[in-house]
């Protein structure tokens, strides 16, 4: 059914414009965050190589030294982790798959850095820092992808090599839940923050569309008046 009511038509136009403004703003944020992570991936790669070169440059057999496996892993595994997210950020910035691959890669970087620093407890904070940076996307589903990778890493290593995850040899069965709880604790609040940000972005888009409509109406009215003033009496 075609509506002819000018108020309804104007409202529909404002709603459409608000949606356009919201999507454009969201794409801008997501694309910017993709590029930010591309640069972060390069930075983490260089940092990983630096850590390996400083902390474990060589493995030794008596007096004979060879380049430590950590150095090769920092170069090649670090490079492998980074290459797909960087390529996606450069050529497919804003694509939904890009940010999920970036989330997975960021968590894999946490795992690699933990190994390169010899399992230091301090490096485990990289996981929580990464979740915070992933919240830049304002897309809670990205946080879920990151959490799934952390959980998968904990599950696999928890079965094969429990002391590398839990710090003890025979962890109680619920230790997995304890770790998962603290990650989820962080993710829940970040997800709430993402949803609030989206709500605010939508509000800003609606206000912007209203202001645009008012400006347009004002411009039309002034044009009509100007034309009327120019018409000789």
């Amino acid at each position: 059914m075609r509506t002819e009511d000018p108020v309804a038509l104007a409202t529909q136009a404002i709603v459409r414009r608000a949606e356009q403004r919201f999507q454009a703003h969201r794409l801008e944020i997501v694309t910017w965050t993709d590029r930010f992570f591309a640069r972060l991936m390069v930075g983490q790669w260089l940092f990983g190589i630096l850590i390996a070169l400083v902390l474990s440059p060589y493995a030794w057999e008596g007096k004979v030294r060879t380049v430590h496996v950590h150095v090769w892993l920092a170069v090649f595994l670090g490079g492998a982790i980074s290459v797909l997210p960087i390529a996606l950020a450069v050529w497919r910035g804003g694509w939904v798959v890009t940010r999920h691959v970036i989330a997975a890669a960021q968590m894999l970087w946490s795992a690699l850095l933990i190994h390169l620093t010899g399992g230091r407890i301090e490096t485990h904070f990289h996981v929580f820092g990464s979740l915070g940076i992933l919240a830049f996307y304002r897309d809670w589903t990205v946080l879920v992808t990151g959490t799934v990778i952390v959980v998968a890493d904990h599950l696999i290593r928890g079965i094969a090599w429990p002391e590398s995850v839990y710090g003890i040899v025979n962890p109680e069965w619920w230790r997995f839940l304890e770790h998962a709880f603290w990650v989820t604790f962080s993710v829940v609040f970040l997800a709430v923050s993402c949803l609030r940000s989206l709500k605010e972005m939508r509000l800003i888009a609606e206000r912007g569309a209203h202001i645009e409509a008012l400006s347009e109406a004002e411009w039309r009215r002034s044009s009509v008046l100007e034309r009327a003033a120019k018409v000789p009496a």
Partner: protein
Amino acid sequence: MDRGMTGWVAFGVIWVLTVAAGFTFLWRYKLRPGEAEGPPAVWPTESRIPRRQDRATLVLFAHPQCPCTRASLAELARLMARFEDRLSADVVFLRPSDVGADWDHTDLWPRASAIRGVTTVRDDDGVEAARFRALTSGATALYDAQGRLLFGGGITSARGHEGDSLGLRRIRSLLLTGEADRHDAPVFGCALRNEPARRAARGSEEERQ
């Protein structure tokens, strides 16, 4: 599916397989223990390392350049913090012949010296390591006050990885209760001698026998 999308999917599959292979390699490397023969059942009388008569003595053999040994020293520090009153420890640093003057002056030596209750010892040409049959950096031997072996093995869970381990757990149990499910654990670290030197040492050992 268009050609561009097929390319990204193929890239994604290769990426997943490559990263999985890389982490598998990493874990296998970290979990591969070094060589171990097990220390002698009784404290070697010819050893120049002083053994305490009133408490247990722990000897940890370290390659001064081995980065993995930082984790062993970190675990030793945790152990000493808890058992300083009933344990004396020596960290024995290898110093092969014909190496530069500064070869063994690495961050590991001050790190070990800083642990309360730990004495650092220089082991010229690995003589003490041979007496205690230590082949891998991080090899640890624990003897009671009478000089009987309580434990021989490593105190990390993987190569250069901090955190609790089977070895630590057994040492703790032995110090607290005098019992443990086993008296050894895998040693993770750099080899104290290279392969020709190990073969030569094994040859001279066989000749003596």
